[in-house]
């Protein structure tokens, strides 16, 4: 019961945040810049066109009416019509979304598998050469800009060695390998560092000594006893990384010319397409809030101590 209750509380909190997010994006794109039409259509527009567009987009109504209309539309999957592509925003998002999901999922696999394996090995071989090497590799991953990794991988593995395609999605899943590595390295670094530090902390506790005293081998103790508890904070961070993977996809998608949501956002900005920008940013943020909510709930379920708070 207490688990359900605390999950319910978190869901409610997320809904409040969600409303806030939609309101802020809405206000920023529609109200703040003064006249949204001029922002959209450039500075040399005649009066008549401004009046026509204003009425067409419902911008002559007060902002709260516009907001209510927009939120109502969101529930029915109506996010307005793109000014650049002349198509419904929802339709564009559903066409571009699979690419981003595919990229983020593959990057997550890279990040989590590499991160956890490196972290565990580093913890076991603490202060040995392997540990130093892996931790240096992780630190580099955290510090290197995504565009640098992407361009260097593209140059060597695609342009010079021709193992992978340079751009686009023509080769199916293989075309996602380089973007996924570029995007995932950063997250792999933080997962590896966190796995190492929590595992080292857990290995100090009494129950690990008990397990060892009962005759479990070193590897068995780590896998069956230590890792289970050490993973709790790691899993939370992993779920929260969905956010950075989705927004980091903007740059990776631009460099590798992948048709994803990030590309859509950049297109929307360069094409001054407010409905499209609004829709794709709100859509991505909803996913991120969902990811964080899952992380919170997982944490509550995995660690009984949290429920009492």
């Amino acid at each position, binding site marked *: 019961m207490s688990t359900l209750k605390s999950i319910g509380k978190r869901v409610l909190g997320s809904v409040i945040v969600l409303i806030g997010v939609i309101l802020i994006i809405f206000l920023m794109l529609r109200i703040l810049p003064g006249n949204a039409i001029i922002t959209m259509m450039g500075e040399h527009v005649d009066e008549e066109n401004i009046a026509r567009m204003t009425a067409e987009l419902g911008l002559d109504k007060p902002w709260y009416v516009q907001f209510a209309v927009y939120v109502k539309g969101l529930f029915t999957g109506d996010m307005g019509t793109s000014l650049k592509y002349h198509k419904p925003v929802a339709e564009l998002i559903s066409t571009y979304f699979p690419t981003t999901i595919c990229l983020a999922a593959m990057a997550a696999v890279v990040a989590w598998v590499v991160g956890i394996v490196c972290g565990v090995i580093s913890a076991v071989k603490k202060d040995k050469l392997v540990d130093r090497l892996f931790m240096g590799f992780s630190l580099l991953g955290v510090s290197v800009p995504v565009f640098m990794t992407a361009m260097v991988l593209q140059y060597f593995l695609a342009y010079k060695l021709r193992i992978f395609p340079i751009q686009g999605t023509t080769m199916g899943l293989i075309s996602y390998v380089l973007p996924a590595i570029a995007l995932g390295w950063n997250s792999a670094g933080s997962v590896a560092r966190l796995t190492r530090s929590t595992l080292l902390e857990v290995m100090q506790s009494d129950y690990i000594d008990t397990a060892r005293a009962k005759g479990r081998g070193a590897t068995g103790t780590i896998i069956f006893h230590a890792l289970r508890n050490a993973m709790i904070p790691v899993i939370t961070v992993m779920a929260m990384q969905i956010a950075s993977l989705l*927004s980091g996809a903007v740059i990776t998608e631009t460099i590798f010319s992948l048709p994803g949501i990030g590309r859509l956002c950049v297109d929307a900005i360069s094409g001054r397409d407010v409905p499209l920008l609004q829709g794709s940013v709100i859509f991505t943020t909803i996913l991120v809030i969902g990811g964080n909510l899952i992380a919170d709930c997982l944490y509550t379920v995995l660690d009984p101590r949290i429920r009492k708070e």
Partner: protein
Amino acid sequence: MATFNNNSNNSAALSEELAGQIGESETLGVQLRRMAKKNKLAVFSAILLILLLLSAIFAPVLTPYDAVTGNTAERLQGPSFEHWLGTDEMGRDVLTRLLYGARISLAVGIVPTLVSLIIGVALGMTAGFLGGKVDYIIMRFADVMLAFPSLLLAMVIMYTLGDGVINIFLALALVGWASVARVVRSETISLKESEYVEAARSMGMNPVKIMFRHILPNCMPSLIVLFTLNIPSAILSESSLSFLGIGIQLPNSSWGLMVNMGRQFFNQAPWISLAPSVAIMLVVLSCNFLGDGLRDVLDPHLNNQ
């Protein structure tokens, strides 16, 4: 008598040890010297950052070349003795452009981080000190800001405000304050319960005065650490924005914009993009090393979180 002496010695040693653990008896200078002794990497990073800052300021003295006009006869040359990091598509010296670009890139690291720190402190301290409805509203607002993927939020703000260096500062400050507010709020709440704040309050001290005289100085260690660790994310955000073409615009130059400009020549002249990328990486790494080192000595509490 002997026993008594022994006892008092023990307690004196104990309180000294406790004070050492809490870090209260040490001044900032002592703590920094302790870090310098323990953590050579942090010191090295600090020196590197200071050198970089100085060379950005004194760029015109350090390089004989011009950052804006180049010699087209020397375009796309690889690194050589004359041009240490090669030349770009307009025959400009890449190292020179790197030094001039550092001015904006480092300013973007420092100024918005400072502004977001001030906003975060003001809101976080108010929320923690007043509690109740004010706290609830401020913190929900912070939750909303933290829910956005930061790059996307910065992109939307840049779209709304338009291009320009000042607008980048503003966008990054607006993106960064929420996490500062969270830390400051939780510190304020725990400090509010301490005896000396109670004492100040019972003497009738003005709440604003309590915040500035008693709470803010105690938040300083965490703030210094946060400042150092938030600089890299500001620099990375700016370079990402400029890379996408929605950040710094010509004729200004930043490292992110240099990467963006060099991208189309990457296959012939990778050094144009690589030099600023490596510079960004070095600054980010140095700030992280320095921040970690500072955290170890200044704020063991933050380390546990």
